[in-house]
């Protein structure tokens, strides 16, 4: 049964890409995150991280380790709900893959 779910997940991801829905979801998310101030909050957090690590020494790994958890936590519930609803609609519309 687990193998079937894995195959299904891969098929769904492929469908998301093929139909362009993944790009549309990414764009929607991007717009919503700017609108709600998520990007501004993360910019402020970035400043602190870079001050701590030093402008010359900060690495991608530093930024990913510090910024990503904060980024995940800062996504507003409303944005999460809207995106999940869009995803569920897509899954319902593509019941057969």
């Amino acid at each position, binding site marked *: 049964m687990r193998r079937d779910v894995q195959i299904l997940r891969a098929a*769904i991801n492929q469908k*998301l890409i093929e139909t362009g829905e993944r790009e549309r*979801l990414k764009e929607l998310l991007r717009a919503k995150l700017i609108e709600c101030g998520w990007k501004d909050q*993360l910019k402020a957090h970035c400043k602190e991280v870079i001050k701590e690590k030093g402008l010359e020494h900060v690495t991608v790994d530093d930024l*990913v380790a510090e*910024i990503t958890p904060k980024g995940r936590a800062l996504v507003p519930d409303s944005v999460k709900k809207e995106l*999940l609803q869009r995803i569920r609609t897509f899954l319902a519309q593509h019941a057969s*893959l």
Partner: protein
Amino acid sequence: MEEISLANLDTNKLEAIAQEIYVDLIEDSCLGFCFEVHRAVKCGYFYLEFAETGSVKDFGIQPVEDKGACRLPLCSLPGEPGNGPAQELQRSPPEFQ
């Protein structure tokens, strides 16, 4: 190819797939932001684009002080007494005459 159907999946599994897609999109946004910041830092425009408030001093960079016209002998304007280049520097070397 055998058709895969989402209709056979129970609600919990479908919801789990939707959540995974959502998490994937959020991770994408966070990583994209990290790369944007890192690029801005390495290309030298972080404090212009990302740090809208504060100044370069926040990052340990000393701002360039505007001291007015440069007073180095070679940079002085002609006709200003006492500020011209040294005598031996006033003529170009023989090989360039």
